[in-house]
């Protein structure tokens, strides 16, 4: 099947280096300490952060650090066929672990000992790149909750189909069987915190694809930064003189 037409257009009309339309909103869940809604194309995700709060299981309390927990769930209606087991299955557990470790690396946990930070991510609509959308939403939610972090974490995926590196795969391109490289970076510090790939890829092409994904991450980071600035301005305005 042809994923990149001879004119250089993908199945949904994008260019190979073009990302899907992204949109983020802060404060989606009123009850949470911090929350955000993030979408990349048709993938829509809500993240909520509760914390720092008291550890519910005393035996898991860490005396010099905060405990970070993360849970990734998909809504039953999020994919084309109704998902029977939205959480507790292997994929959800793996993604929960990945998100937790990624965010834990950038949260300044030593500032909040003996406490717990819960990150909950709910996928409302899945169209490829849910992992990346979840990490971006979690970053926004953590910022909204005022939890101290070393830097933002942004994530994007890239692939290689029809001999072309493609940025931000959707579900059809992802299930085509080509490689899927997901990268998560700390943009200001310019460090890579998450890097996952499946399928085979020659080394030099891998470097190109990874570089493309990193460019995507930086673009998302710029957008998130603007969003947070706008949000802070609004908070300041609402607070009054």
């Amino acid at each position, binding site marked *: 099947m042809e994923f990149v037409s001879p004119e250089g257009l993908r199945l949904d009309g994008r260019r190979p280096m073009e990302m899907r339309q992204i949109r983020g909103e802060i404060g989606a869940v009123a009850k949470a*300490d911090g929350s955000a809604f993030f979408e990349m194309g048709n993938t829509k995700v809500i993240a909520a952060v509760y914390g720092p709060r008291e550890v*519910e299981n005393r035996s898991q309390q860490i005396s010099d650090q905060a405990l970070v927990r993360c849970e990734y769930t998909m809504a039953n*209606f999020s994919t084309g066929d109704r998902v029977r087991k939205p959480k507790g299955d292997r994929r959800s557990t793996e993604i929960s672990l990945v998100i937790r470790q990624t965010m834990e690396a950038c949260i300044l946990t030593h500032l909040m000992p003996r406490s717990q930070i819960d990150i909950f991510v709910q996928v409302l609509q899945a169209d490829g790149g849910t992992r990346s959308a979840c990490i971006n939403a979690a970053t926004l939610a953590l910022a909204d909750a005022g939890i101290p972090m070393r830097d933002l974490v942004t994530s994007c995926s890239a692939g290689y189909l029809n001999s072309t590196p493609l940025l931000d795969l959707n579900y059809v391109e992802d299930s085509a069987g080509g490689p899927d490289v997901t990268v998560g970076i700390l943009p200001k510090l310019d460090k890579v915190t998450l890097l996952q790939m499946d399928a085979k890829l020659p080394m030099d092409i891998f470097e190109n694809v990874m570089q493309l994904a990193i460019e995507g991450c930086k673009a998302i980071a710029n957008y998130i930064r603007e969003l947070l600035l706008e949000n802070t301005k609004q908070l300041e305005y609402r607070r009054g003189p």
Partner: protein
Amino acid sequence: MKVMHLFRFLKLLLFSSLEVVLGNKTLKKMVSANVSGDLSSEMEVDAFRRLFPLRYHERFLLDSIRPDARPLGRARDTSLALGAVASADGSALAKIGCTTMLAAVKMEVMTPPKESPDEGSIAIEFYMPPICSPLVRPGRPAEEAPVVSKQLSDTILSSGMINLKELSLVSGKAAWMAYLDIYCLDADGSLFDAALLAAVAAFSHLQIPVVSLNEDGRVVVVSEENEEGKSEKEPVNKGKRKLTLSSLPFSLTCILHKNYILADPTAEEESIMETLVTVVLDSSGQLVSLYKPGGPVLAYASAVQDCIALTRQRVKELKSILNEAISDMEVD
């Protein structure tokens, strides 16, 4: 068209929280007698609210008002957006104040049981994922979730809103199974009301997909690309259809406290004043269900009559909100 839905969906998520913040601020200035505007008086009000919640609320009730400036009988701002989930056959996002519910219907074909070969079936599930409230944790599911789930299931099936015979495809061989999943995205009181509104809206938005019999005699969903030129596959049901819904149920939850009746409680009010009464009326004004699960306040019949009267008014509001949302969809 999709961009419009997106925008509405997002706008709804944020709309109410802004208003609540502004409302609270003006109220704090009202409550603290010395309107000095400094932070210490605001913190004292917050501390009083946390330490003595009942007395805090009763101060407001004496003036027949509530902390968010609502009169006792008024419900919070309600909004609806249909078609929030593009991948589902019917969906709706309902917001009552900050309480947000996302409902989606997905249709699958199944073989009907022998006792009712001409009827389809509906399966209703209500979920409270941990994002909705600080009290819900992964190891500790919310105790309201199965209660609301059962209430919803009973109310929708017993109200007769959906005629199960409409869900039949080929008598005895194939019928529709409609899976309705409702997710609570933000739990701030009146969960049942918001969930019922979302469920009714999702069914109003539902469009049954076109199916046809393929060579094995199985019913298969016809995707839009194959519609032209496939005359061997005769659709079993012509065109995407909507369900005819009769007597839509709408509800209102009230709290009884001493001799006050508070309509549409927030989560804070529900946790301190525990006697809830939920009344479900259908669009023709008939009583569908009444639910008062115990509670410290014992109600005379007059209190229940007052609740029913409040619900009647609320049903009118909800009907107009639903009709507006449906006509918004059709304009697009």
